[in-house]
């Protein structure tokens, strides 16, 4: 049995916002976490990080982790709900720090036994990832939808 499995009953739900708030729509995850912080939710641990690899320090021993991230896509603002441990997650051409994105972090977590029991990813398709840009209108509009759906998952 792994150390993670021993702790599983001890660590609360993890809510993680992935992204850089100074890089346009990449700030989607941090923006959703900031909104979730204002809600009264069941016990959870909330983190914001820009480097997906850092999630490996936070996943072990969780029954559930929810990661909120921005994604490259064709329809700006479209919110997707993914369960990558059962459905898989596409590995895009890298645009993340040092070529280690969320998909790579999940695969590393899988091979090292550092995954939560269940992982849900909310990903919104971004439009503008320019340095210093604010959230684009379609992504900003997706924040509320993501907050409502994640709050429901937490309470469910």
């Amino acid at each position, binding site marked *: 049995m792994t150390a993670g499995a021993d702790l599983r009953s001890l660590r609360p739900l993890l809510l993680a916002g992935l992204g*850089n708030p*100074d890089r346009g729509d990449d700030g989607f995850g941090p923006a959703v976490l900031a909104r979730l912080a204002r809600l009264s939710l069941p016990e959870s641990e909330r983190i914001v*990080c*820009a*480097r997906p*690899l*850092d999630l*490996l*320090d936070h996943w072990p021993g969780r029954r559930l982790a929810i990661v909120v991230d921005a994604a490259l896509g064709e329809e700006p603002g479209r919110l997707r709900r993914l369960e990558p441990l059962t459905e898989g997650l596409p590995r895009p*051409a*890298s*645009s993340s*720090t*040092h*070529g*280690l994105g969320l998909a*790579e972090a999940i*695969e*590393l977590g899988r*091979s*090292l036994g550092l995954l939560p029991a269940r992982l849900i990813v909310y990903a919104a398709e971004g439009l503008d990832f*320019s*340095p*210093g840009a604010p959230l684009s209108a379609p992504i900003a509009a997706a924040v509320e939808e993501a907050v409502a759906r994640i709050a429901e998952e937490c309470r469910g």
Partner: protein
Amino acid sequence: MAVRKISLEALARVEGEGSLELSLHEGKVETARLKIFEPPRFFEAFLRGRAFSEVPDIVARICGICPVAYQMSAVHALEQGLGIVVDGPLRLLRRLLYCGEWIESHVLHIVMLHAPDFLGLPDAIAISREHRAEVERALALKRAGNEILRVLGGREIHPINVRVGGFYRLPTPSELSALREKLERAREEAVALLRWVATFPCPECERDYEFVSLRHPSEYPMNEGRVVSNRGLSLAAEEFDSAFEESHLPHSTALYCRFRERGSYLVGPLARYNLNFDRLSPWVQSLAREAGLGPVCRNPFQSILVRSVEVLFACEEALRLLSLYEPPEAPSVALPAIPGEGHAATEAPRGLLYHRYRFDREGTIEEARIVPPTSQNQASIEEDLRLWAERHLSEPEESLRDRCEQAIRNYDPCISCSTHFLRLVIRRS
């Protein structure tokens, strides 16, 4: 004669975006161009008009991997302009913070990005399947580095606790005590990492570089020292502009930094190690020798070994600093309200990082200049590529592309930092 093109669309396992274009003619590499197409970020322009107290937090945003380096060069340059020296325990804490960044940045590159090149594996995920214990160890080591940043910097990325004059908040004794325990384990893990990396097969490839790094009278350099080279250069940071010049080339959004007189030079772990081997402790020196390194290393592929030596050094140094630390009376020193101009160079994980600022009496930035290590190494990377590609021109294109990417990864280039940066196009005629 027909031109033959080989294109490498996007370099993998480097930070940022760019490409490489090689032009080949009669078995020779005519040109090797790193094409950097990340948009320029104009940090220097938007620092103008801001208060100098904002600079450490703004420049930390230039890089998610080496924010401490940007903060350290900034605060030292601004303090020089103010005519103050931050010494004693505050200086010690800054060096400790830098140790944390060297550990996490180097370990990320060594195990997650560079090691696959030597093990014949596609990526870190494949390494984690075949060398699980080593990857677990690396993650633990990286966590120790992160922990230093969290305790001293306030958080692990883009630290917020560094200010001109010192820090906003001092660490508590219990935080430092917990850090010491983690670093004692990290030091053992760093020895094991170095011994593992020493088993990697390494290509033979030496070049006669001009190495440039800081040199301090008694320490392995981080925050202070003269800018020196193995060919007699010895400058104070404020003389940086007199020796080096930046120019813009059409194929890249990054500026090229060269010696005014001698062209390319190399900054980073190899330069630091070669110019400062005598500043490592006898214990680290002996482990470097055990790993197969002499006091001078001119093989860029052995940079992975030198980075591992520096991780070991950073763990040892962090523990030494912790044993010496006595809390100061205040977390920062008072700052005079005077106009000024200041320069500083510090050793980012990837090499020398130069900053210059001019500010008015109210502390408003009038001019800022930032020369990151990857801009300084750009010309040297292209020269390595010319040499390395020429040796392997007879190989199939896919193999040649792999080799070129490996030669670039030797530098752990931080493309976003340099954009002020990677795809590969090979033109054969």
